């Protein structure tokens, strides 16, 4: 059976000629329905670019790029776009400062012509653990964690089968991060979501995802199982180095 997301030989290039930057160079991945898939890598490894290409935010080339069995074409219809929703890294930048929470959540409903908007908005707020009093607030009246909840509510209000998360907790404190990660894993269970989580934090990715892709310099290094990542049973030296570095500082013996 074909997976929820099939990526074959994905290439993303910025710029032309001698100044071209090959951000993603021939990535092939298959992600099953209901799977939690993680992508880790350092800055510039192309991990966020994969998500952007998948969601059609940037142009890309590929032999195959399908979501839910449908080809994700260069020009996407509204229906295509409903399949994938995005939660960005910085909750301070991803919400419009002059839109209330209500307006931010209403916009996708208007664009996609869904009715019963008030009920959908209040349901979405409840789902992410916000109370009705937050509905008419502006982003500056919310904390970082609350803003990220709004961003998640906005992504889920269209009931997409796939949720793309780009470093959803790296701008948040540890205690708030724990709340958001718990929320994501609860929503994933309840809505049978397929999620792709991009992060530089191995702990976060291993907490949420069953399979994890490691990227470096725009290429896939390997795809490992969560348990193998924990036990260190990985194939590539780069992965081992990443695991070791994330365990903290090691003083040299000399």
């Amino acid at each position, binding site marked *: 059976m074909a997976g929820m997301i099939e990526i074959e030989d994905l290439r993303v290039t910025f710029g032309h000629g001698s100044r071209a930057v090959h951000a993603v160079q021939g990535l092939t991945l298959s992600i099953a329905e209901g799977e939690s898939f993680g992508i880790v890598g*350092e*800055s510039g490894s192309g991990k966020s670019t994969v998500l952007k290409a998948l969601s059609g935010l940037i142009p890309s080339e590929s032999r195959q790029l399908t979501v839910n069995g449908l080809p994700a074409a260069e020009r996407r219809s509204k229906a295509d776009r409903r399949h994938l929703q995005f939660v960005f890294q910085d909750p301070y930048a991803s919400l419009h400062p002059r839109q209330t929470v209500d307006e931010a959540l209403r916009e996708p409903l208007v664009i996609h012509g869904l009715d019963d908007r008030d009920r959908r908005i209040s349901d979405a707020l409840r789902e992410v653990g916000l109370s009705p009093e937050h509905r008419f607030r502006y982003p500056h009246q919310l904390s*970082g964690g609350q803003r990220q909840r709004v961003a998640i509510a906005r992504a889920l209000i269209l009931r997409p089968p796939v949720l793309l998360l780009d470093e959803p907790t790296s701008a948040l*404190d*540890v*205690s708030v*991060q*724990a*709340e958001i*990660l*718990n929320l994501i*894993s609860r929503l994933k269970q309840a809505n049978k979501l397929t999620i792709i989580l991009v992060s*530089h*934090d*191995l*702990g*976060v990715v*291993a*907490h949420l995802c069953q399979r994890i892709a490691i990227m470096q310099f725009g290429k896939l290094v390997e795809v490992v199982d969560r348990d193998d*990542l*924990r036990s260190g049973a990985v194939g590539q030296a780069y992965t081992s*180095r*990443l*695991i070791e*570095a*994330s*365990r*903290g*500082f*090691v*003083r*040299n013996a000399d």
Partner: protein
Amino acid sequence: MSESLLTVRNLSVTYPGRTGMTHALRNASFELGRERLGIVGESGSGKSTMGRAILGLIPRPGIVSADQLDFAGRSLLANTDRDWQSLRGRRISMIMQDPKYSLNPVKRIGDQIAETCRLHLGSTRKDAESRALAMLEAVQIRNPDTVFTLYPHQLSGGMGQRVMIAMMLVAEPDLLIADEPTSALDVTVQNEVLRILDRLVSERGMGLLFISHNLTVVSSFCDRVLIMYGGRILEQCAAADLARAQHPYTRALMAATPSLDHPKAELATLVRDPSWLE
């Protein structure tokens, strides 16, 4: 730790506002020797305020008060601007979080570092340049001659952070305050930068105040740790004992951190207890 480099007793920072006083730092007391002392806490816990207060960098209308604030046997409380000028950058330095905002964008890297030498050590131009070059080499920049002539925007994040460290260390300070020096860096680069700081502490006998929100880094890198919450120091312990910390807040922070080695089905969330601030 042998002698005390910095003694802080009941340091408080308050900002007056329309709705009353905001207590950014409340009665903080600790001592720092020639060691690596970590300060951990979440946003708003007062950890950066602490670093700034020690350097006399709290902007008006902030009010700094303390029973004692001694650096190398001298009180910092009555310092004039002139006194600060001779201390800052020379004997106490601070590395800020983000090199993008802390380096002068229109000045070459080499000139920025050399300026520190000329200002604080009274070096000649030639001497300052050779010191700057040597320092760039000491922070493991591979081709110091090239980097010397570059502008900040031409550097990567890791390089920029190393340049900052070089600039802060070129005057050979006795105390270095590092405010989240590695938070903007990739994990592999982060460990390289920590290694440089580590070597400088052990070779030069410098005192290091390491401010961070990352428990893993602090517990593996520092000798001792202060845990801060709401402007207070809740607890002090040896870094190696952080896993066996006493205070419920520290324990909750540890439990809320997703870890590669200790998988949890659900992360513990923090229930804040108002009594922690009493």
